[in-house]
């Protein structure tokens, strides 16, 4: 079984995050593997482990598109357990929106399937910086694959996938045949951490770097020029500041109601 997991390198939300430069893109100086992609990687690893692991010819390829630093998301994925890594990196990709990102990733996925077919593409439910959740659906559209997104659980029986998807008004069971595109939520599993053995093993694993020319994408189709949306202005919102803080001395509930009344919220 051959699984591609999409892993994005994103600004760490534990620090202040900034938009910079022309196009107002996120500053990537303090970046990490998007936490939500760890669930996708875990799902991939569990699927191949249940089928005899790498020894049985299964593999998990971690694919990240992004500037030089994005290779760190690939490295972290290899430490956690991915078989090999691919870093799609090209200056022309800077400033890509979801449409341009999905175009480039779709081309990379096709490229990685030329010798042996890809059975499954797994992604996170959203990137923790862009947070659009557009890329998985757009990849399914571009690759003409069944879309099984926001899977809160995932099972594979023969070539048939079954997932549970939780909506606001209803919960669905969704089924599709492989090959398919699946995004998983943070309800799907408990991602593992890299251990010492994994960190040592990762040093011997292959990372392939791909440029746009390798995957047959014209630079004009991606990046800021190829994007279908443009961020025109960005203004930092004044940070919320603390208001009145009181310590309960037996009447805080009443004070709370007085506050609500004063704010005309009752």
């Amino acid at each position, binding site marked *: 079984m051959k699984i591609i997991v999409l892993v994005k390198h994103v600004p760490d*939300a*534990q620090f202040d*995050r900034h*938009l910079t430069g022309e196009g107002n893109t996120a500053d990537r100086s303090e970046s990490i593997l998007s936490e939500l992609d760890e669930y996708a990687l875990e799902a991939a690893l569990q699927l191949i482990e249940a089928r005899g692991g790498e020894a049985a010819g299964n593999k998990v390829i971690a694919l990240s598109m992004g500037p030089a630093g994005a290779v760190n998301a690939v490295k972290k994925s290899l430490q956690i357990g991915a078989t090999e890594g691919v870093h799609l990196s090209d200056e022309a990709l800077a400033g890509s929106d*979801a*449409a341009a990102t999905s175009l480039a990733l779709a081309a990379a996925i096709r490229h990685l399937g030329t010798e042996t077919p890809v059975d499954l593409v797994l992604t996170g439910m959203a990137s923790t910086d862009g947070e*659009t*959740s*557009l*890329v*998985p*659906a757009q990849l399914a*559209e*571009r690759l003409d*694959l*069944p*879309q*099984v*997104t926001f899977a*809160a659980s995932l099972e594979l029986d023969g070539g048939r*996938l079954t997932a549970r998807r*939780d909506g606001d008004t*209803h*919960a*669905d*069971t*969704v*089924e599709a045949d492989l090959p*398919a595109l699946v995004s998983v*939520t*943070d309800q799907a599993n408990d991602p593992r951490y890299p251990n010492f053995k994994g960190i040592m093993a990762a040093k011997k694993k292959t990372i392939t770097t791909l440029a746009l020319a390798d995957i047959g994408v014209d630079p004009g189709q991606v990046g800021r020029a190829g*994007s*279908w*949306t*443009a*961020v025109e*202005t*960005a*203004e*930092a*919102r004044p940070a*919320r*500041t*603390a*208001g*009145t*803080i*009181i*310590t*309960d001395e037996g009447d*805080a*509930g009443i*004070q*709370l*109601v007085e*506050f*609500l009344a004063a*704010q005309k*919220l*009752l």
Partner: protein
Amino acid sequence: MAKVLVFIDNPGQVLKKASLELLTIARSLGETAVAVNGELHDDVLDTLAAYGVQALYRPSAADLDDYLVGPKASYLAAAVQTAGATVVLTENSAEAKEVAARLGIKLGAGVITDVVAVDPDGTAHKSVLAGSYMTTAKATTPVAVLTVKPNSITPEPAVTGTAPSAVTVPVPDTATAASARVTARSEKAASSRPDLSEARIVVAGGRGVDGNFGPLEELADALGAAIGASRAATDAGWIGHDAQIGQTGKTVSPQLYISAGISGAIQQKAGMQTAKVIVAVNKDAESPVFEIADFGIVGDLFQVLPQATEEIKKRRG
């Protein structure tokens, strides 16, 4: 004048407030057409007329709900072409965003999610990076697809109503070819409380409620509020995952957010820090939630909330 197509998926018996908001925004941009999927009740039709809808479309297929997303996007693409629309508005639910995503690829149209306002020239306003920036963005393509968050605008019917009659849009036969099938569906019990994403007031609980949402429910009922939760509370199984607020749950922007027994981790703040007024009740004065609270109470939620509920009831007599 621009032609705007609003997608309303399964309108149900009565149009939701979020749909009325879309219709109001659409009218401010140009001539409104609506593409519906699912049953169309008379009440809904009356409301569409009251909101000045000029054209109404329905799919030729009745089984779009049996598949995940793809076929709905095919239908909508056909409706956009029939309507000659240059702006498409949908709600901001997970599924609607995905329909928008695929529609964008089909039409070569830029998609902007989480929109809170749209200028007459199509410029969309949205906040990014967990509410830390306000941005404006624009689609650079002939058609723009915008998914709009609830509670963005006050719904207003049109000055003069219309009488739209439904036109059937053919859904291409190939629409379902590479689609995942929905093989089972369980409806969730409707709550008597307001919908969390649309609620004016939200009372949310975290690990500090220790399995007992009772005091929060009583306060919520006194205030007409919806109930929300942190992931710690939903993961513990004290309340359904639908109630989760934050990065991987819902984003809410109510007039009032009352946070009780929640520490205020960054992933929780991502879902609530655009609330107008934030009240926090927490035993620990060092909790980060106090950094963003307009009114903070260092205290035990099991003391403070019941007292507040009593006081509200007393004032109302």
